[in-house]
């Protein structure tokens, strides 16, 4: 098969810096590849982690998020939120096996028309190297990532990071940044695994073995996560098929 791959890329640009930078690239006629499709938000902090996954699910090969440089944010520190969230989304994509490169976060100011054009050129090449994000293989992992990013636990952790590392929680506990990252990573892994099982069970009741096959998770891991789901009333034991327990999803 001989076709040259033209990636399709979704880009979120904040109104005040990067969208203005993209406009300046235009005014200055700096040329760059035409693969990006831009959505303007007032602040990069508006971009919900879920939006990234919606993009990847709906036909884009990658998603770029552009915001103001630190210190330039029109809303003081919206871009700090963006940075933290996008880091987690990247981790989730890594966990799900897509690799974190399909999400790119960059800072471009309103004066950096050339930098905008250069960055888009560079990143488009990078995505071209990654190849197309096609086929049903990624449907399940992406659905799981989306579900996990929608989980209140992960979202809470994403938002509470500064409070936990810079100030303290109501009990006066304060975490080191590295410990917090560790916690977040572990939690992301678990939430992803749970979400993956839920997504798998959406297709109908399955045994643990079937689920392990379907999701690629080790049997032991499937069991543990099913326990979690059971505890929170999301799944229930339906019976056994041979020695393998069969689970079903409880409607939420």
């Amino acid at each position: 098969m001989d076709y040259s791959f033209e990636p399709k890329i979704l880009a979120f640009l904040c109104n005040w810096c990067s969208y203005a930078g993209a406009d300046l690239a235009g005014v200055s006629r700096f040329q760059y590849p035409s693969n990006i499709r831009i959505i303007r938000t007032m602040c990069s902090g508006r971009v919900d982690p879920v939006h990234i996954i919606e993009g990847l699910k709906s036909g884009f090969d990658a998603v770029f998020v552009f915001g103001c440089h630190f210190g330039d944010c029109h809303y003081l520190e919206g871009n700090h939120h963006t940075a933290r969230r996008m880091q987690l989304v990247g981790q989730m994509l890594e966990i799900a096996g897509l690799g974190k490169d399909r999400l790119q976060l960059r800072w471009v100011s309103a004066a950096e028309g050339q930098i905008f054009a250069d960055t888009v050129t560079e990143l488009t090449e990078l995505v071209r190297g990654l190849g197309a994000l096609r086929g049903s293989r990624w449907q399940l992992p992406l659905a799981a990532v989306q579900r996990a990013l929608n989980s209140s636990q992960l979202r809470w952790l994403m938002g509470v990071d500064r409070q936990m590392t810079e100030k303290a929680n109501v009990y006066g506990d304060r975490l080191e940044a590295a410990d917090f990252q560790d916690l977040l990573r572990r939690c992301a892994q678990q939430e992803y695994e749970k979400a993956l099982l839920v997504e798998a069970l959406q297709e109908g009741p399955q045994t643990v073995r079937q689920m392990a096959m379907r999701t690629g998770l080790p049997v032991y891991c499937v069991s543990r996560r099913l326990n979690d789901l059971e505890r929170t009333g999301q799944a229930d034991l339906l019976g056994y098929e041979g020695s393998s327990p069969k689970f079903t999803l409880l409607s939420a």
Partner: protein
Amino acid sequence: MSAEKNNVSKNPKSGGNGNPVGAVMVVGGGIAGVQAALDLANTGFFVHLVENSPAIGGVMAQLDKTFPTNDCSMCILSPKLVECGRHLNVQIHTLSMVTGISGEPGAFKVALTKKPRYIDLAKCTGCGDCTKVCPVLMPDEFNAGLADWKAAYRLYPQAIPAAFAIKKLDRAPCTLTCPAEINVQGYVQLIKMGKYKEAVRLIMERLPLPGVLGRICPHPCEDKCRRQEMDEAVAICSLKRFAADQVDLSAFSPPPVAVRPEKVAIIGSGPAGLACAYHLALKGYRPTMFESLDQPGGMLRVGIPDYRLPKEILDREIDNILRYGVELRTNTALGRDFTLDELFDQSFQAVFLGLGCHVGKPLGIPQEEAEGVIQGVEFLKKKNLGEPFTVGQRLAVIGGGNVAIDVACTARRLGSEVTIVYRRSREEMPAFHHEIEQALCEGVKIIYLAAPLKVVTGGDGKVMGLVCQKMELGEPDASGRRKPVPIPGAEFELPVDMVVPAIGQEAALGALADWDVKVSKWGTIEVDETTYQTSRPGVFAAGDVHSGPWIAIEAVGGGIEAAESIDRYLRGADLAEGRVLGQEAHERWRELPRDEEGRPREVMQTLPPEHTCACFDEIALGFTEAQAQAEAARCINCGVCSECMECVAACKAEAVDHSQKPEAVELEVGAVILAPGFKAFDPHIYESYGYGTYPNVVTSLEFERILSATGPFEGHLVRPSDHRAPKKIAWLQCVGSRDTRPGAHGYCSGVCCMYAIKEAVIAKEHAGADLDTAIFFMDMRTYGKDFERYYNRAQNEAGVRFIRSRIHSITPAGPDSQDLKLEWVEENGDKKSEVFDLVVLSIGLEVGEDLRRLADTVGVALDGDGFVETGSFAPVASSRPGIYVCGAMAGPKDIPYAVMEASAASAVSSSLLAPARRTMVREKTYPPEMPVWEQEPRVGVFVCHCGINIAGVVDVPGVREYAQTLPNVAYVADNLFSCSEDTQKLITEAIKENQLNRVVVAACTPRTHEPLFQETIREAGLNPYLFEFANIRDQDSWVHQQEPELATEKAKDLVRMAVAKAALLEPLQPVHLEISQNALVIGGGLAGMTAALNLADQGLFTYLVEEKDELGGHARKVGHTWKGEDVGAYLFDLSRRVQNHDQIEVLTGAQVTQVKGFVGNFETTVQCRGHEHHIQHGAAILATGAHSLKPKEYLYGDNDRVTRWHDLEKRFVENPQLLAEAEAVAFIQCVGSREPERPYCSKICCTGSVSQAIALKKQNPELQVYILYRDLRTYGPREHLYRQAREMGVVFIRYRLEDKPKVESATINGREKLLITVTDHILERPLKIPVDYLNLATAIIPKGLDTLAKFFKVPLNHDGFFLEAHMKLRPVDFATDGVFVCGLAHYPKPIEESIAQAQAAAARAATVLTKGYVEVDPIVSVVDELLCIGCGLCEASCPFNAIRLNQVTGKGYRAENITAACKGCGVCSAACPQRAIDMMHFRDRQIVAAIHAGGQARAI
């Protein structure tokens, strides 16, 4: 209406009806002017913003980053510019200057002169098509001359207004000189660009014979060419020929004009007649041209040999003229075949006489009628018309003009031997030098200083010789040439068989005089010099017949003017009106380029003489294309715009209008604010720095442009000489500042230390750590908020080197080196030298000549430094009441201070004009909104061509058709310019006719145009939020110019995404909240009182809460300002005014105990002498001041001779004897400031100690005064105090932080003293100084601000002072709306700055309070209370305190959005763990719809 206006002039105190005028003029569109304009417009006044340049933005727009936050300057400025540009109540007058002002405060009349922009602001879409085609390059002032821009230009890419402008000076000298007024500069530029057809078209606007004149014109234009001042004139004539030779004239079509019926006769078809006929034809006439010979062309045909002007060139161009509708009748001569009266009888209504001079002048010698004597013109005519005649074997040609040469060379070609006899010497010969050369080369002999005496004939009566008289040169005659006088007896005979006199021609006027055409005594026709009308009405004349034999281009010029007159005559118009003889020239031309090297003109190839003398082939071969373009490029564009009119053709919006004239505008305003900024110091006077000579010595402003991403090198840090990245950069401080040499300034410019550090830090960010940066300085003046920290970081983290030395000269590092050597002496006396690749001169700020003129025009006094004079207690008031000043025109200052003063100027203007608030503002009304909630979406899609900006790349009709196929789309259209007024009407009609309820415009960018379209759909009855933009220009066609198909595909995707989002858009209503119009000021010191008083004067009721029992704060301890004003007296007066004001309620001894609410609706509880007050207020100003540190060093507290701040002054005032007896006193600076635990400068202490020292010296000149300092920070004009103190003998000793002075008690000679030990910074050894008293300048420290900070939810900075919303552009605002800060609680500052800041805070508070309501953009977040679990993450993530937890009975806590405070970023929405928060207009489902639409399979 007119009666009212009369009133105004009779009674200038009132605005017509007893009230002041509710409008203010702000002069200067820099950041200060913009801030003042916005503040005023937002408090109910109409603002005229007057800017000299084509766009607002000022110097700040040129800066790269700003200190101390390293924000991108343009990023933070641009939103303000956009707001200003869009504000209904700010009218921007660009390219305008104040030329006069009269009247009084409350009612001024201002005269403005508006320079032409040559581009219609209303029509210009900012697309830049004009600049693309413009051929004229000029130095780009915005890039400090480091790049070029075009004559059609935009100041900078993000300029407001976005319209382009054309820079035009006087017409170039070449054009002014040309008798036919051909636009020389214009066609030369077009040739440069290879646009030959356009060049010829431009020439032919005036001259129908480009190829002819391109060959034979003696080009007077070249004599005036200013390129001669550099090397040689541009070869204009040859360029014209080149262009004409490239173009087929038949490709031009005559202009489409209505044919005029009147008959006009043109007599004579020479250059005058041809030009006249051509121009009449252009005007629609169909003139008849009568020629006596059988071929047209007049002297061009019969007088000029083929080798100079090939006949086919002439034929071609005459044929072209005939093609335009001119009828030619040959062999028809006036006088012979018809009379003038017969013409009029034959219903000709006007006649043009272009008869020429075709009769040779006789020699007046015997035998002149002999056979073989033939006049030169006759000789040439016969040859040129091919008439049979016999040419002699040996010719004598008499005369020294071009005709003589032409005859001689023609005869040579026919095989004759030719001798020219000329009565003067070679120098006097009138023929062109190169033609004489040519003739000599071809073997023509010339006998100089000889005159013919008689023709000798043979028996057959034919010529056989010519007797000549030898001459010598005598005294100069009337023409200035030396008169030839005969040498008696010196005669000789030339053996010739033909004699050709060529000493001049005359006109053959025949019976003209009988037909009422007056003839002069020289035998020429007399005409009016402007209209070319003869004495007989309807008869006009030009060319040689009027002027006598002269150059063809003059005849053309006359013919053109005569055509104009004939047209006017036939239309019955005044012949002379508006016409002047010659053009007015002010010689306002572009300066000759300094840096361009000389380049001689191109030399045209010619045929070799051995070839030419045998045939009539054209000698000059013309330029090659490369030669022509290179030659054209030598033009220096004297007039800047060349009026080539390429922009007119390129502009699809038809916005270019070269006919614009300067306009006088008169404004009526109640107050004036001057904010014109400053001029950057020009370092040329420092000859030893070689600025302008060494390319790698640049100014700091140039360096800003080098760093800037929009700069000449696109943000790559390279040096000008070789565009190589520098490895070592040096900054030299105080260039033009702190220097008393002539041309420089004694004051400190106040900003250079910080900007140099910033530039060094940013340079390192660009280039990486191995870039070496060194700043050479005298005192490091980082006195502002967070500046000292910035300095420390630059030193310790970025590794910028700071070298305390003033560099005296810069020299090249070697003979051919572009590197630069600096030499200096270290403090310890060591000599050092280093080589740098780039040196930046930190130039100061000054008031330039233009600004001085402005000050003079408006009548405000300037101080000794040239800045507008102001007092400390009224820091923004000028000497003329009602005229205020802010920014750098009132003294050097940085951006935040200028912004603060701008708000302060707005505040004082507001209080002056308070009764007229809202009398002149415009408000718009709209039709009622269509309800769309229950309707199916019907989306209208409008795709813009943007001229060719989009359509040149994207298939616009294709996109439109594609849009038609999308779901919910009910209507599609495409427009040439969607933003034009007529398209707005089309959109409005389309909405109504098709019942559209959503609109998508696919065009440029929402950042500039969304408000326009929102406005349009509002006028059609749609809610403005039912609009969506697809950016297919800035982010598509402009950036994918080489990929039209992909760009089209992208455009379709973007439209599809926009339509998908649009279908889900909801109408939103701005949130309208009633507010309390009262203000609360906390802190009753100078700042608090000032703020309260200004608010009260503006008519806003104000509570003033003071903790102490008395108003006045710390200012009560201060005797005088540094300018010498009495603080106590002012304070007394101020507190009296505050306490007696009926709009102020003062609560002293009062404490704030609780604050609830938010902007517009605060409720503050104040405990006051046992009572609890609940104050409702809309805004709050925090002015709680600061304290001075009580140190634990230098024996303070242990020895009562050690005092601080004003204690020493007080002691001497109380006991003058102590001062009289004292022998020495010392001051120690930086006590507690600039130390690790308090790393900031207290800003006011240096000035404080220096002024005290001066006062002490004045009272007791014998007293020894020492000031022990680290850096002397008498910034700005305070520097004069420092100089004065040194001159008075105050001793300044610098100490280092790591080696502080030591103080001990001692008894010396029986007197109790203090002994100070300090290391002398020059001698580097300890000095022991005995003094009687020591005064410490201790740190200014904040105290107790955290309680208020918690109450109002506003932040403190690391040093404990209040932290404003933005250090640069919002210096008195907090991020929390409705709360403002001023005075020492913000940061240490002197009295005048505290007062300005207090007024600024009042102005900002007034923007909230005066409206009576807050209107909030409905793009805010909304909480779904059912989903919310009250976790509080949103509250924690919102920096504006716009979302908070509320207790809801039975549910615990639930989040609530405070619409008034919400800025609409959407951070909370993306943060909410429950996804309970959504963002209006950027709702989740709207964004997701756009994502899904964008991700769909490709639209092909």
